[in-house]
């Protein structure tokens, strides 16, 4: 078990290293210049600035410096926010993105699981179709359309919720709902097929034969067993939503880190985008690892010895 975890961590480190390097080199390939302004900076000064930020050195050297700092947990200074460290930007933005993401996951998970259960228990009947239809409806409309419509309708027209920003519980309702929609459909579907799987199993027949009540079968056998595989898709989801959603954060003016995905690339801010990608990578790898370990602990059929079969 311990050896397995060590091995996984080593693999994770290599993964992060490759991802960071890939992002870093791709950023070098995009056109543009970080020291750019509508009013032109004079060439001599631009040279001085490049030197100051170490951009005058050969790429390999720059890469070496970056990786050395990275290994020490220093993601460097942002270009977009000149006097702020990338570490600080992530540290300050993360709580907002994470709070939004976790709420969305909670809502998405609960609603999704419920719809999935209803669908599976009524397999091929009206309720099945209806639940799945509701679930799919959420993913059928682009996020920005839903967000903009909600904002106008609930915020301006009915004036029952604040239009934007992230300050009180009321502020969180619309963004949470808008973000959870994508999740609902996926969870509902997954839960449904997982439930159907379980329902067909022999031990359910046994339980029925033993004369257990339907409620008890559904609750302690079907749902319990069906929910397990659904947890596996949570790992990547958590990593995904923790790092924020560009669309929702932009429309609701939430100070998370999601908006930097687009902004930092547009502004040629190499340190920021590489830092965020790296952070996301670490989070993703870590979440997957955690899910695997948890899964192994919950489900005795899976052995954590690293062999697939």
């Amino acid at each position, binding site marked *: 078990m311990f050896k397995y975890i060590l091995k996984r961590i080593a693999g994770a480190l290599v993964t992060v290293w490759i991802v960071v390097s890939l992002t870093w080199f791709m950023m070098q390939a995009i*056109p*543009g*210049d*970080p*020291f*750019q*302004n*509508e*009013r*032109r*900076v*004079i*060439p*001599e*000064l631009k040279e*001085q*600035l490049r*030197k*100051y930020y170490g951009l005058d050195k050969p790429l390999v050297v720059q890469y070496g410096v970056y990786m050395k700092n990275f290994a020490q947990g220093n993601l460097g200074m942002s270009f*977009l*926010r*000149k*006097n*702020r460290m990338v570490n600080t*930007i992530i540290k*300050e*933005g993360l709580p907002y993105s994470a709070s939004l993401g976790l709420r969305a996951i909670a809502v998405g998970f609960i609603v999704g699981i419920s719809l999935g259960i209803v669908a599976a228990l009524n397999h091929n009947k009206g309720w099945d179709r209806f639940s799945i239809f509701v679930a799919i409806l959420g993913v059928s409309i682009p996020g920005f359309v839903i967000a*903009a419509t909600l*904002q*106008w309708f609930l*915020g*301006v027209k009915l*004036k029952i919720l*604040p*239009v*934007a*920003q*992230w300050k009180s519980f009321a502020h969180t309702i619309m963004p949470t709902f808008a973000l959870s929609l994508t999740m609902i459909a996926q969870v509902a579907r997954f839960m449904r097929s997982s439930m159907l799987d379980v329902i067909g199993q022999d031990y359910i027949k046994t339980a029925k034969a033993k004369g257990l009540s339907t409620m008890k079968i559904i609750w302690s056998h079907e749902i319990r067993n069906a929910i397990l595989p659904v947890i596996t898709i949570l790992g990547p989801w958590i990593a995904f939503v923790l790092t924020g959603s560009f669309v929702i954060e*932009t*429309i*609701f*003016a939430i*100070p998370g880190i999601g*908006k930097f995905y687009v902004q930092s690339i*547009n*502004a*040629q801010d190499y340190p920021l985008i590489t830092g965020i990608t790296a952070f996301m990578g670490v989070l993703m790898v870590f979440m997957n690892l955690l899910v695997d370990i948890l899964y192994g602990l919950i489900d005795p059929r899976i052995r954590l010895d690293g062999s697939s079969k």
Partner: protein
Amino acid sequence: MKKSLVIVLAMLMILSFTLTACGPKTPAAEPAAPAAPTEAPKEAQELTINLFAEVSTLDFQACSSSGEIQIYNWIMEGLTRSAGGGSVKPGIAEKYEASPDGKVWTFHLRDAKWSDGKPVTANDFKYGWMRAIDPKTPRDYTYFLYDIVNAEEYSQGKATADQVGIKVVDDKTLEVTLKQPVTYFDYMTSFSTFAPVRQDFAEQVGDKLNTSPETFLSNGPFKVESWTHESEMVFVKNPEYWDAASIKLDKVTGLMIAEDSTEFNMYEAGELDHTIALNADQKAALTKGEVRKYSDGSVWFIDFNTKHKILKNKNIRKAMTYAIDRKSLIENVAKMPWVPAMAFVQPDIIPDADGKTPWRNAKPGYFKDNDVETAKQLLEQGMKELGITSIPKMKIMCNENATGQMYAQALQEMWKKNLNIEVELEPVPSSVRIDRQQKHDFDMSYAGWGPDYPDPMTDLDLYVTGGGNNDPDYSNPEYDALIKAAKAEPDKAKKFEMMRKAEDILMDDMPIGPLYFRYRNYGVREYVKGFERDSFAPDIQFIYAWIEGKN
């Protein structure tokens, strides 16, 4: 297209602006603050505005965008203070004068205090200015100080600190020696690069200077109360400000709302007192009293790459310019309060030689809007000159957002319909656009320019050969000579005559095809009094504003 409106940046290009007539200078009488109610206002003096986005930095010596300069203007005061319309009034300096040769400027400071109660001294200015040219930390606008003796040398490590021409005579007197006479040096000192910084405080907070409320020291009308990065900044009245009696607002909240529709929704829901700009539909949704219009000072045009195999021909450039229906673009497509531009220098805000009449009045335009007939003739002539029978497909670079692409498409269709010229869109993010413009790596580009100071030179200076902002790579020796002569000309009438000739040449060669002068509608609550927008940075002016009749 949001565009940074930086005050004095093009100043560099007028470094050679050597004026001989430069007598002692007495500052103009202070413009009176708007008539404020005499009795103490009863309502909460609080204002909520939109800052649009988090600033890049508030290290004043490094500030460059309009947002940063605005905040500087709210919480700080330099030797002089911007007074709107591109003019300045005395700030921390009570009075100042230049030597007869215009090279030595002496500033006399008033009794002003920092927000912690300690006095503002000449040394604070010297320390701040030396920071700006510190060779260890180059900043984008370090070169603003290059007029000062040995400043450039020091910033490049070629001179020592004590050789720089900034001298503290005593606590209340600062003496600055310039390399050459600069008549507008008092204008430059209002800019944030020339901010005072107190040494003991700066050394105490180190790198963290001006990054959180505790690391700010203000000497201006307001001070920073809180700063939630990427979300909001709260400013409160600074009781230690020397002119605190003229400041009515107690609290100003600046939110950071980048999405245009979100901003408007928040204004409609009562969560904002001001919107940065309104489109036609938004304007229609508001009551008349809260909609106001101002010139944001910018002129918009098409950059023609004068080295392009087709566009190197001036008749073709002219044909493309004449064939545009500006009126239709403005009224039917953009639905904005813009004014068609058939010339380069902006109307209303740039005065002629007499300092009063707008420069544009003497010659409103150089050609007719939507002059398809002439355009066709010019095109034919141009093609003959080039020896070609058809125009190959060309590209226009434009902003990637929906409106940027929309305006460019309207032009695309006009060229196709009127001249049968195929033009393809190249939507790119602004960082890419600026970079490519600077490298002259484009066919055509949809661009704009805002003035730095109220003089035609702020525009005309762009197109001298090799100029930093000469995106079309235009070069005409006659034009260069006129601009150079105008800068050196002491006689104002003659100088303006030369500039007029320069604009004539520019509009004949047409390296840029003018489109429109941009005016904007914005919303501000009727209970907010004394709130102004300005064509010159800092755009949003509320320091003397007050709230009246809200309830």
